[in-house]
């Protein structure tokens, strides 16, 4: 059957950078888009990103930079867990992305001559990062929001703001034919038939109760796809930022530059010393980073800082406060005028939200859950050049036919750890790049949005209406409060699955989460009304946090290694101990053997499938495409790093020579 004459109809779920970029590109390619978002799209969480957006550029090229190096920094930073073809494509698109955003009116900071200014970010030697003040995410999002508003006025976009995505609609072949969503004001549940569906709903930080993410980042949309058969990959990789301001309601980021300018991290030696910080003499203070890492002091790498702060509070019990974990980040020894000149912006945030002047009193900070590296599993088609095949329908398609995942809610680009200023890039890139893939997919289908049987739409709506009604009236006599269960889940996840992971704790948490899941399924709601019932919306998102939490915990339990954001001290690779050169060489050889053996076992993406009969996540593992850059050890801070690196380089050179002389002898994987 030929396609009807009606235009391609795509539902985009989520109005952050990825969702808006996708909407904008799809409308340009002729699609009609239904854009569904929990919040007015201009208020999406992308507005919170501060640092900037990466691309190699004219200036860095003259220093020897190129897209290939951007690719290399990304996969090295990600501890080689990224499939390399998508990262390659992203790195090569990056300059184009910046240029487009520039044309769309993003007020990037300028050099004196009027070019886009750049700054340096962690994990790279080049000034690749374009920025608009300290609110780059906000500026990028607004530029896309404006273009989507323009398309809306043209009649190409229908925005459905304050709508909650409840799940994909699938036909008997499993293909996604649209979505069911709920108006959060009138509580009406409605079907949106479509040729294809894009999910761009961001991270799942709220599983941890509080994080640096917005309240919209529950992960429930991704979970609803997961529970309907989409695979979910690398759930265990959650980036934790070392310094954030703990708040009763949320955790707000505090930039690393505070330590860069001389900030000192400490706790009182006496647990919960009742004295004010300035009354505690030097002798009673424990500058634990400076004592434990005399060489680097407060400027140890991010992951080490994160782990040590966590350790001092959790294992040593030396948190500044007894009911809340935090350490002091002290700037009070630095003259006020210097602080104002160098750190004014971030100190104002602390002042505004804590009501305390950090020039007078040390800041109380703690690591905070910040970014989901994992997400919905998504396919791609590799091109002959090792990047992605432009326009291939399978690019970023989930394991549900016709359902796409882009932005933070898919699992590509960041690997085991995210390189700073790459997330904005990955969101806009995936939104733009997948436009033609989605159009080609839609064009190749025999039936489209207009042909979806009414019975299919009706039954999908009914299933969701039943769930909704059951939540309002089904749990008579139950005393379970969704907000309190959420608190318990968050506390548990934060305790066992953030910075340092231990198998016994993970096992215990898995059992506890099972119990919480059962309790969450029979919550009793204080509001059973049918107008703007936030209670029932929250209860649903809470219930849907559990499948992701389970995939995350199980993934972490089964991964017995340290890789990027996932750190298990029991499986840490030791430093070299011997002073004897021969023995040291032998140790380095053994270290490299162990590293290779570990990669053999764990250089894999965890791929979870939701098992509806057991209510558990089943895990499988897929090989990582490392065809462009062979994995190498990350040795920062390790004793004996030079020897290990030497052995590793010799082995790599040998392998390269062998593969040249006889094809197929040695694989690079």
């Amino acid at each position: 059957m030929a396609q009807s004459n009606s235009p391609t109809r795509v539902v985009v779920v989520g109005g952050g950078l990825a969702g808006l970029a996708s909407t904008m590109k799809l409308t340009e390619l002729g699609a009609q888009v239904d854009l569904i978002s929990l919040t007015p799209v201009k208020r999406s969480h992308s507005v919170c990103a501060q640092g900037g957006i990466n691309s190699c550029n004219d200036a860095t090229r003259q220093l020897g930079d190129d897209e290939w190096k951007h690719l290399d920094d990304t996969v090295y930073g990600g501890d080689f867990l990224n499939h390399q073809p998508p990262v390659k494509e992203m790195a090569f698109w990056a300059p184009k992305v910046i240029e487009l955003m520039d044309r769309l009116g993003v007020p990037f900071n300028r050099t004196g001559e009027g070019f886009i200014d750049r700054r340096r970010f962690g994990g790279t030697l080049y000034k690749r990062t374009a920025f608009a003040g300290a609110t780059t995410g906000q500026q990028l999002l607004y530029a896309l929001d404006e273009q989507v508003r323009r398309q809306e006025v043209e009649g190409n976009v229908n925005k459905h703001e304050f709508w909650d995505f409840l799940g994909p609609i699938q036909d008997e072949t499993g293909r996604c034919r649209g979505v069911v969503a709920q108006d959060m004001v009138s509580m009406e549940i409605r079907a949106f038939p479509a040729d294809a569906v894009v999910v761009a709903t961001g991270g799942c930080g709220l599983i941890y109760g509080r994080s640096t993410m917005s309240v919209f980042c529950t992960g429930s949309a991704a979970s609803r796809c997961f529970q309907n058969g989409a695979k979910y990959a690398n759930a265990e990789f959650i980036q934790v930022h070392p310094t954030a301001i703990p708040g009763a309601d949320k955790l707000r980021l505090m930039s690393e530059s505070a330590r860069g300018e001389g900030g000192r991290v400490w706790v009182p030696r006496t647990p919960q010393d009742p004295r004010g910080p300035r009354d505690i003499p030097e002798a009673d203070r424990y500058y634990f980073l400076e004592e434990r890492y005399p060489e680097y002091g407060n400027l140890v790498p991010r992951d080490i800082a994160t782990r040590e702060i966590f350790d001092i509070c959790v294992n040593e019990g030396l948190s500044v406060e007894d009911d809340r974990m935090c350490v002091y980040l002290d700037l009070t020894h630095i003259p006020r005028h210097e602080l104002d000149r160098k750190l004014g912006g971030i100190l104002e945030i602390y002042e505004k939200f804590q009501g305390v002047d950090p020039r007078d009193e040390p800041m109380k900070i703690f690591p905070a859950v910040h970014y989901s590296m994992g997400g919905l599993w998504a396919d791609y088609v590799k091109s002959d050049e090792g990047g992605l095949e432009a326009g291939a329908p399978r690019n970023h398609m989930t394991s549900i036919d016709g359902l796409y995942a882009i932005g933070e809610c898919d699992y590509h680009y960041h690997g085991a750890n995210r390189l700073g200023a790459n997330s904005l890039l990955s969101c806009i890139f995936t939104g733009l790049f997948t436009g033609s893939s989605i159009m080609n997919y839609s064009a190749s289908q025999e039936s489209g949005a207009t042909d979806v049987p009414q019975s299919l739409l009706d039954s999908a709506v009914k299933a969701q209406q039943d769930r909704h009604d059951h939540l309002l009236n089904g749990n008579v006599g139950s005393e379970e409060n969704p907000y309190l269960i959420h608190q318990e889940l968050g506390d548990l996840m934060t305790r066992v699955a953030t910075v340092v992971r231990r198998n016994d704790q993970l096992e215990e948490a898995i059992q506890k989460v099972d119990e919480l899941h059962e309790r969450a399924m029979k919550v009793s709601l204080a509001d059973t009304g049918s107008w703007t019932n936030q209670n029932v919306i929250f209860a649903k998102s809470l219930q849907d946090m559990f499948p992701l939490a389970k995939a995350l915990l199980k993934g972490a339990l089964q991964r017995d290694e340290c890789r990027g954001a996932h750190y298990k001290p029991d499986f840490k690779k030791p430093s070299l101990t011997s002073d004897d050169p021969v023995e040291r060489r032998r140790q380095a050889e053994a270290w490299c053997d162990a590293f290779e053996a570990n990669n053999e076992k764990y250089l894999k993406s965890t791929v979870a499938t939701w098992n509806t009969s057991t209510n558990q996540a089943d895990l499988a593992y897929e090989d990582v495409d490392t065809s462009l850059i062979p994995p190498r050890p990350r040795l920062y801070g390790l004793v004996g790093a030079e020897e290990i690196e030497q052995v590793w380089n010799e082995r790599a050179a040998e392998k390269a020579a062998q593969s040249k002389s006889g094809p197929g002898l040695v694989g690079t994987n």
Partner: protein
Amino acid sequence: MIALDPSTKKRPEFINVRVRRQDAPGKAPYWELHKIKYEPEMNVISVLQRIAAQSTNRDGKKVTPVAWDCGCLEEVCGSCTMVINGRVRQSCSALVDRLLADNADEIVLEPMSKFPVVRDLIVDRARLFQGLERVKAWVPVDSYFNMGPGERILRDDQERNYPLSQCMSCGCCVEACPQYNKIELTQKSGESDEEFEAREKAAYSEAFVGPHAISQAMLFNNHPTGKVLAGERLDALEGPGGLASCGNAQNCVAVCPKEIPLTTSIARAGRATTLHAIKTWFEK
């Protein structure tokens, strides 16, 4: 004075919170009292979270949780605007210690008064975004393909535009504006959703567009490609509900949480429309 000195223990054990509630559009508003346990470093969002979790009023009677809107909780997304102790602001950056320092007895929370109430503290701010449509607040680029870089922009222009582009459409400026009046229509019986929306849109487009939209018009008129539409934007500002409706009360700039120079934008728009009018007259 930044905060209460941590050594003074004069903090209360409980906080009284008075919330102006409304169950749905068209329903009568009513006041409800809540009492929650004081904790250090609370903001209005965490107060509302506690109210949601306990779902009983001050007398211990079971009540529905108060509905409110919030997002990033970092004063960037613009969701959580409400009137707190009589002043419009973001509830995330409204710290309880400071509120209690001003008024030790209670915290009073009300929805913004210039927009139709959806429920409790949630209002419908669609008119704010429609204001952006009215002034065509976007850059009309040819396409989203790779066409190379945009024009070079001088640092001065970037520094003038950057503050304007921080507007988060929160609504503080229009809440404080005496010329921005509430428009609340009700759906007639037999009127379809689409018809009602169209009628609502028509009413909005006659009324004062608001300082935020005027400022956005100036932002895009100062962009090398955006200025292609400068004439159309100025036409919109000369029309009904445009600049002539501004009474120059200057309340907007006083309440803007991002300290956007709104009155400067309005003055610039005034000059630009005058020039535009003369130019159009000569071209007739």
